[in-house]
């Protein structure tokens, strides 16, 4: 039992450390200014607004939208390459371990209330994030790019991380009265949406992540190829369904595009068919039988 308790704690610590690492420019919070150093040409893997005063690197989703918006002048090689490497190496382990907004959603869900369980409705809603990806991250920026107007659709109209980390941190600072004077209808739209999303997360496990996050949708596209993550040993699986019943998100199979690799199913599997692996190296869970482990 002690062992079982220790494991989620490890994930929580990794989530916390990564959130702190992404936002290590603590001076920015005190001064009400963002970091402007050279590290910002790197992207962090998780959703973290680069207009957060603490952010030390770029948001991959913001960088992607701007690269698409600039694609009329230059192809978006850099950001696409970075996202491809993140997808291949880490996949949606990023969502489960390395996303500060994922951590926030999980903490909100711990508030004791009646919870909404997964259902055909939540499974249907989980497809919405692909529409958000196509429309707001790729479609709108590309459409306006060829009209000479950079428009990061997701950042502008939806992103709750930008509103929470960037807007709230900056606008509450006494030194930023000029920014406060610019507040208009768009700001109130984004604040309303952020409050709606955060409230939903209290009742629905990772509501934003499951239904709206285009970064999770992107990483999910490479779920079958990602090196790191929770993997199912098909040979040992007895199809008992214990993992699917216990999983808080809308997976159809362990490690699929909806799985955030939290690993909560590993200890529940009666057939010991689930493990957390980096390629063939087992990081947690049962080892492969010797003959399967051989290359």
């Amino acid at each position, binding site marked *: 039992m002690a062992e079982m308790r220790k494991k989620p704690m490890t994930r929580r610590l990794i989530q916390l450390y990564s959130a702190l690492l992404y936002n290590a420019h603590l001076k920015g919070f005190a001064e009400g200014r963002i970091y402007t150093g050279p590290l910002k040409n790197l992207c962090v893997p998780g959703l973290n607004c*680069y*207009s957060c005063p603490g952010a030390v690197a770029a948001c991959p989703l*913001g960088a992607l939208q*701007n690269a698409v918006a*600039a694609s009329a002048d*230059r192809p978006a090689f850099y950001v696409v390459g970075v996202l491809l*490497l993140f997808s291949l190496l880490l996949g949606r382990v990023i969502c489960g371990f390395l996303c500060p907004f994922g951590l926030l959603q999980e903490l909100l869900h711990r508030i004791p209330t009646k919870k909404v369980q997964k259902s055909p409705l939540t499974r249907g809603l989980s497809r919405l994030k692909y529409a958000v990806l196509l429309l707001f991250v790729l479609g709108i920026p590309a459409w306006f790019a060829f009209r000479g107007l950079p428009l990061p659709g997701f950042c*502008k109209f939806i992103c709750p991380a930008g*509103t929470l980390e960037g807007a709230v941190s900056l606008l509450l600072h006494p030194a930023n009265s000029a920014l406060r004077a610019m507040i208009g209808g768009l700001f109130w739209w984004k604040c309303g949406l952020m409050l709606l999303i955060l409230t939903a997360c209290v009742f629905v496990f990772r509501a934003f992540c499951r239904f709206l996050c285009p970064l999770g949708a992107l990483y999910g596209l490479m779920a079958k190829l990602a090196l790191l993550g929770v993997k199912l040993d098909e040979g040992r699986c007895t199809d008992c369904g214990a993992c699917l019943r216990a999983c808080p998100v809308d997976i159809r199979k362990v490690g699929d595009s909806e799985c955030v690799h939290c690993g909560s199913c590993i200890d529940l599997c009666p057939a010991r068919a689930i493990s957390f692996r980096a390629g063939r190296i087992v990081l947690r869970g049962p080892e492969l039988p010797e003959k399967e482990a051989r290359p």
Partner: protein
Amino acid sequence: MKTKQALWAALFVLGLALVVLGILNGGAQDVLAKAIRLCSECIGLG
């Protein structure tokens, strides 16, 4: 399994090549240029 590994390796090399090409064509500088300026869209002001 071998096909999957070959596909993974090919995509990994493609990813590395895209990053290098992106650095050479100024894409990394674009990321920096955007990230060091306050993003008015992100914070709901623009």
